[in-house]
């Protein structure tokens, strides 16, 4: 459908960035040596994980840096003007008019005290002061139509908080497109949205860019989303361009080891393989050395990589494909991502006849007077991995919290190993409560910041198994080894650890309780893709050792790669359930079909 849209035949150069460098005020580089061009009507994606500098580049295109940083040098040419050289008033006229910006978090990007109409009118007043009231109104109505929002007065007089997240993001799009800019910068505009909403917003963006010949710079951490929308892709790592290519070339023949790693790390709904993590963590600003930034995590690294910074070299004069790696294989193999059809080899076979570990019967719950769970019943077998899938508000987290005993309002019955289980955690005996453990979404708040890793682990051990305390050293070391952490971090405080490490410590704390059921609530959504893959691998290995897993997620790719069975939830009810491959390949309910269709994927269907 997208391909049928009319593309302008001779696209002109809309944006040119040359040798852009941004540093902290103390001189530490954030991004270096960034050069690229975007043609009118095309979408360039800047892809990278946290710390790659993608947002820094995005705002630098409007000559803006966050507090404490500055643009050292470089050129950003838009419509013949170098944006970085303008005085304050000239820059103001360019911002929003020539280059506009769509921020990341729609809920905080609008002034809570003024209406939608006021927002749009303020932009028009700033950039098109000549318009009379009628023209202004026409322009506002038109802008809302373009982003597929209602445009009657009632809607115009709403305040930002009265809109859904998707609507807020569309208002921000309208604010950016209303002036017909030549360049639009989108900074992860769909991260906060549900999959279905995200798919629709992306479609709108792509349509508008092509229709009006707007060049777009699309910042994202999600390669699958990028594949859906971008014409060209720049892969960023540690503040530098690792690889630059057309979208087709990048996904069919990624050359940089990081690009390859990134693609292999994505759990994809159409792939039956377990994602492969990239070992290590993204480097901090201060720890970047003289050599290739990726060298510490690179499997192909040579001695030379440590000392010399690789330049971004085009593969050939003809091709628009450039890589910054001195150690490219002579014949880069074509990456083959094939949609497999059979069940994945990794599935744990579950015997049908055994007694269920957990039974949930007629579970319902309400929150703030609204019923969020309606009569949920399901069961879970020993060693099985069950995925709870749904969009925000579907009740998936509420179910998992109720099983963990964290929902005071829940009603219904739970049976664990055939015995009735109290609904409140406080009502459960230690013999039960140690068997059910919960890992939270946000690793940064899962550990007491005033306790070292050792204290956290030992407090747990002391609570359940005081007799084990006599060889506390071994207990801690063993627990950390089990989650592939260096036992030497035992005396670190949480703030000294990365998100991935924190999540591993949380898992270690759960494991010292010797659980038989582990509830994982979106445990990877706060993590980078490459780190996520490592956590998924760990969870899978725990399952192989007999642990039952309930995995809550909105990401169908993760569901495909680690779960055995799936429950699809919508508005607090189970819509569909079944064995994972059957359900994902032959969905029966329209809602499930929609979810699957809207899931971004790196595989061509």
């Amino acid at each position, binding site marked *: 459908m997208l391909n049928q849209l009319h593309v302008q035949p001779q696209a002109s150069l809309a944006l040119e960035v040359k040798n852009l460098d941004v540093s902290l005020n103390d001189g530490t580089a*954030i991004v270096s040596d960034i050069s690229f061009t975007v043609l009118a009507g095309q979408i360039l994606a800047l892809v990278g994980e946290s*710390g790659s500098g993608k947002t820094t580049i995005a705002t630098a295109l409007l000559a803006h840096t*966050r507090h*404490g940083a500055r643009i050292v040098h470089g050129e950003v040419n838009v419509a013949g003007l170098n944006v970085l050289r303008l005085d304050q008033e000239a820059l103001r006229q360019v911002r929003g008019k020539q280059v506009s910006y769509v921020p990341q978090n729609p809920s905080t990007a609008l002034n809570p005290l003024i209406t939608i109409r006021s927002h749009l009118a303020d932009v028009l007043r700033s950039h098109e002061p000549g318009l009379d009231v009628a023209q202004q109104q026409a322009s506002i109505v038109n802008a809302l139509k373009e982003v597929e929002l209602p445009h009657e007065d009632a809607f115009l007089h709403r305040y930002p908080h009265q809109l859904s997240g998707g609507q807020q993001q569309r208002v921000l799009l309208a604010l950016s497109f209303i002036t017909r800019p030549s360049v639009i910068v989108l900074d992860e505009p769909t991260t906060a949205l549900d999959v279905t909403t995200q798919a629709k917003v992306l479609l709108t963006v792509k349509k508008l860019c092509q229709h009006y010949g707007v060049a777009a710079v699309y910042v994202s951490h999600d390669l699958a989303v990028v594949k859906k929308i971008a014409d060209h892709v720049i892969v960023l790592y540690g503040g530098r361009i690792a690889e630059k290519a057309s979208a087709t070339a990048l996904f069919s023949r990624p050359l940089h080891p990081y690009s390859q790693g990134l693609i292999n790390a994505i759990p994809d709904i159409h792939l039956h393989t377990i994602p492969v993590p990239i070992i290590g963590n993204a480097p*901090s*600003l201060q720890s970047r050395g003289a050599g290739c930034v990726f060298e510490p995590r690179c499997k192909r690294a040579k001695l030379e990589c440590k000392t010399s910074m690789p330049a971004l070299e085009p593969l050939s004069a003809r091709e628009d494909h450039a890589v910054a790696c001195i150690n490219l294989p002579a014949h880069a193999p074509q990456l083959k991502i094939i949609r497999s059809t059979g069940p994945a080899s990794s599935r744990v076979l579950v015997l049908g006849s055994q007694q269920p570990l957990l039974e949930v019967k007629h579970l319902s719950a309400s929150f703030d007077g609204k019923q969020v769970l309606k009569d949920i019943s399901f069961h879970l077998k020993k060693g099985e991995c069950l995925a709870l899938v749904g969009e925000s508000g579907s009740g998936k987290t509420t179910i998992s919290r109720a099983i*963990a*005993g*964290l929902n005071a309002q829940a009603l219904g019955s739970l049976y664990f190993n055939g015995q009735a289980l109290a609904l409140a*955690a*406080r009502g*459960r005996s*230690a013999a039960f*409560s*140690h068997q059910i453990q*919960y890992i*939270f979404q*946000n690793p*940064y*708040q*899962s*550990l*007491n*910041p*005033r306790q070292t890793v050792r204290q956290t682990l030992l*407090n*747990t051990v002391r*609570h*359940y198994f005081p007799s084990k305390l006599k060889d506390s050293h071994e207990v801690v070391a063993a627990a950390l080894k089990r989650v592939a952490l260096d036992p030497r971090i035992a005396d670190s405080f949480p*703030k000294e650890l990365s998100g991935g490490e924190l999540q591993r410590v949380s898992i270690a*704390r759960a494991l010292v*309780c010797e659980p038989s059921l582990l509830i994982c609530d979106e445990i990877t959504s706060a993590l980078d893709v490459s780190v996520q893959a490592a956590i998924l691998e760990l969870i899978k290995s725990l399952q192989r050792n007999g642990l039952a897993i309930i995995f809550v997620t909105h990401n169908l790719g993760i569901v495909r790669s680690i779960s055995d069975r799936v429950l699809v939830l919508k508005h607090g009810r189970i819509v569909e359930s079944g064995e994972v491959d059957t359900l994902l390949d032959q969905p029966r309910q329209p809602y499930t079909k929609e979810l699957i269709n809207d899931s971004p994927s790196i595989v061509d269907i």
Partner: protein
Amino acid sequence: MHAIKQFFYSNNSQINVGLLLTSLILLLAILGPWLAPYAAQEMVDARYSLPQAGIALGTDYLGQDVFSRVLHGGISIVWMSIASALLGLVLGVVLGLVAGFFKGRVDQVIIWTADIFLAFPHLILVLLVVSMLGRDKWLIAITVAIAFVPGVIRLTRGLALSISKHEYIEVAEMMGYPHHQILLREILPNILTPLLIHLGTMLSWSVALLSGLSFLGYGVAPPEADWGLMVNENKGGLQIQPFSILVPILLIALFALGTNLLAEGFGRKFSRINESTEVSEHA
């Protein structure tokens, strides 16, 4: 110029000056009685005589030595302000933690009572109790502490509520840790910094409150020497012998300033630390 700028920009200079002032006043108040050349109630000259040899700061409304009375008159306000601030903190933190953690009915009752008490301005509340029950120093200190409690409850409760949303508290709850362990080991250490900063602020309030009370004549009873009382006693001599008023006012102000600066300095230092960790997370 640069040094001046440096001074006003640094939180450490706030802490240092605060520490210096506070400890100076503490020393003066504690050691004063031993250093004073005269006893507190000793008449040395005519009323309101100006400073002269042997009478460094002149005399007061009765002809007592102002310098000696200043040295004698600090200890009450110092110990009373420290005691009331500490007591107010402890009582408020206990009630606030209970309210913020157990929520529900308990919370409603505690916070409702606190709100009722918040409708009484501190000074009015203290005045009411002192006028009815007498001016015993411990009684005054306890009343001042109680006047502080509702504020501490609100602060602690708010902090405890925001901390209880953190997942590590839910983990403790899920594992069934005893309540006192959750309150003391998981919550309290994480809200201690703002509470200690509040302690500093309360200290400066109690200095103002207690000296104000003495000034109104409901605090320390004459003929005992006390800074706040001295201002009241000597207000008739403002134009003749300003030192009898100026010096006690200055000492009260410096003590309040010192404690205030400590609270400010630590407050900003810790919030700066929080900010910088946030920045590095985003980078």
